């Protein structure tokens, strides 16, 4: 990522539509618009639907800013510059659970349907058009709105299928997690990649015959035809705005029918089976609250291995925003549905395997920033996590501590639980490994490693005597 001498940093994910570009200046998020995009923006801002969507929190808040705030990238100065509301933590669709992708899809379709009624459309249909405020999705790609041209179908349909609908079909109909597929391909899943998995009677599942098989076949048959020719042919054949609206309603109806509720995994029941006594739990909760509230109110707390979100919720009482990270998509989905029903807008649940976190993706590997590039928290919670990495995943203990320090903003704190080697959970993990494999997995070694990278301010041994909690200020 490059920063110009004036402190203006172009957003690496915003280059595909040359009509506009997003920049970061300090904490501000700005968007430069070319002449045509600026004209579209003025019509959009004056439309009845746009301010309604913004005030409902469905589209990110946007206002005009001085055009001189961002430099021109092509020699021609931007015709207009917009200032956007800042999203507290940027996430990618492959870090969302099924319910999150589904709700994001429904919001995208609702926005498109509302826009169509007022003569606007969106020029793309990407899952990346959406972000989150806690458990509430928000549409961020203001540059995607443009006036509708009569007689043309939705230009974003193919992209919507690839980045939203196909991933949902994969999970809803086959029970296969979509996250690794989306993570591997920034443009989403191609119809031809998915079609072989939907043979036989699976063709008859909702949405499969039309949006997948027919769509894939049509793409092949019309590969040589230009889109401008096809648009002219459709216009001549009488394709109308009403038809586009009907298609969008049809996709909305289909997405509402797609559901996935997996049966409980090892982790969905973890809080009940993880072996804490009631006294341990009370002591741990008090320690965590005290540790989060110890210094100035944190802007961002990362809860690593959040499970059912118990500690993320406690932290949210004393922080602006909490990102609750968990590796099991089913657990994240449960947490998301609970947070959504509570109307929670300050806790964002994400699917991330901490031993294999989201890497950088897309163009030059920076278009979609990796998890480590985005994560810089004032407080990092690592509760009942270190033993899973150090014993379960064989990550050397010094590396685990280095990694925790790396996720912490300068002067920030780590709240970490060390499970002693004689704890029942640690013993269970150790029993699966060759004997004597982790001689350094000891409490004194761990403390020494933490003190080499920060200052332990508080410590508490839980009443059961096999787990110790620490609060350490890193780099301090």
């Amino acid at each position, binding site marked *: 990522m490059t920063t110009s001498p004036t402190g203006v940093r172009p957003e690496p994910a915003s280059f595909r539509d040359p009509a506009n570009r997003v920049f970061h200046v300090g904490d501000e998020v700005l968007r430069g618009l070319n002449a045509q995009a600026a004209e579209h923006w003025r019509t959009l801002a004056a439309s009845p639907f746009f301010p309604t969507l913004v005030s409902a929190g469905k589209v990110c808040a946007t206002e005009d800013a001085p055009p001189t705030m961002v430099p021109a990238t092509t020699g021609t100065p931007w015709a207009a510059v917009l200032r956007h509301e800042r999203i507290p933590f940027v996430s990618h669709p492959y870090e969302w659970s099924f319910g999150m992708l589904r709700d994001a899809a429904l919001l995208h379709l609702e926005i498109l349907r509302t826009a169509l009624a007022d003569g606007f459309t969106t020029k793309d249909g990407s899952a990346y058009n959406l972000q989150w405020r806690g458990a509430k999705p928000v549409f961020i790609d203001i540059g995607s709105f443009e006036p509708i041209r009569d007689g043309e*179908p939705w230009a974003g349909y193919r*992209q919507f299928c690839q980045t939203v609908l196909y991933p949902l079909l994969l999970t809803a109909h086959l029970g296969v997690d979509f996250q690794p597929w989306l993570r591997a391909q920034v*443009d989403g899943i191609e119809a031809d990649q998915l079609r072989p998995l939907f043979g036989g009677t699976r063709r008859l599942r909702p949405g499969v015959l039309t*949006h997948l098989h027919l*769509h894939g076949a049509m793409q092949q048959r019309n590969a040589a035809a230009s889109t401008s020719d096809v648009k002219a042919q459709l216009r*001549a054949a009488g394709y109308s705005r009403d*038809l586009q609206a009907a298609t969008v309603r049809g996709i909305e109806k289909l997405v509402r029918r797609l559901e996935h509720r997996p049966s409980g995994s090892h982790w969905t029941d973890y809080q009940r089976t993880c072996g804490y006594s009631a006294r341990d739990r009370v002591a741990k909760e008090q320690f965590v609250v005290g540790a989060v509230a110890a210094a100035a109110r944190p802007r961002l707390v990362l809860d690593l291995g959040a499970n059912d979100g118990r500690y993320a919720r406690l932290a949210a009482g004393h922080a602006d925003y909490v990102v609750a990270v968990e590796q099991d998509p089913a657990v994240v989905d449960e947490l998301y549905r609970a947070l959504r029903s509570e109307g929670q807008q300050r806790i964002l649940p994400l699917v991330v395997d901490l031993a294999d976190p989201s890497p950088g993706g897309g163009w030059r590997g920076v278009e979609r920033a990796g998890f480590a590039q985005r994560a810089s928290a004032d407080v990092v919670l690592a509760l009942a996590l270190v033993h899973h990495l150090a014993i379960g995943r064989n990550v050397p203990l010094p590396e685990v501590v280095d990694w925790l320090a790396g996720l912490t903003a300068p002067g920030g704190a780590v709240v970490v639980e060390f499970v002693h080697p004689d704890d029942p959970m640690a013993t269970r993990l150790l029993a699966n490994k060759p004997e004597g494999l982790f001689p350094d997995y000891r409490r004194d070694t761990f403390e020494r490693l933490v003190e080499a990278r920060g200052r332990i301010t508080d410590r508490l041994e839980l009443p059961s005597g096999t787990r110790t909690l620490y609060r350490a200020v890193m780099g301090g």
Partner: protein
Amino acid sequence: MIHLAYLDAGSGSLIVQAVVGGVAGAAVAAKLYWRRLVDRFRRQPTDQR
């Protein structure tokens, strides 16, 4: 596999939206294919000249 660029709606993806658009959509698609067919026959005598 067809790799289509960003902001390229894709020709097949445009037509399939007519097909999935209920009876009215199917009628548009049928009209489009009919016109393509008629155009092909109209063009052929010219090509043979």
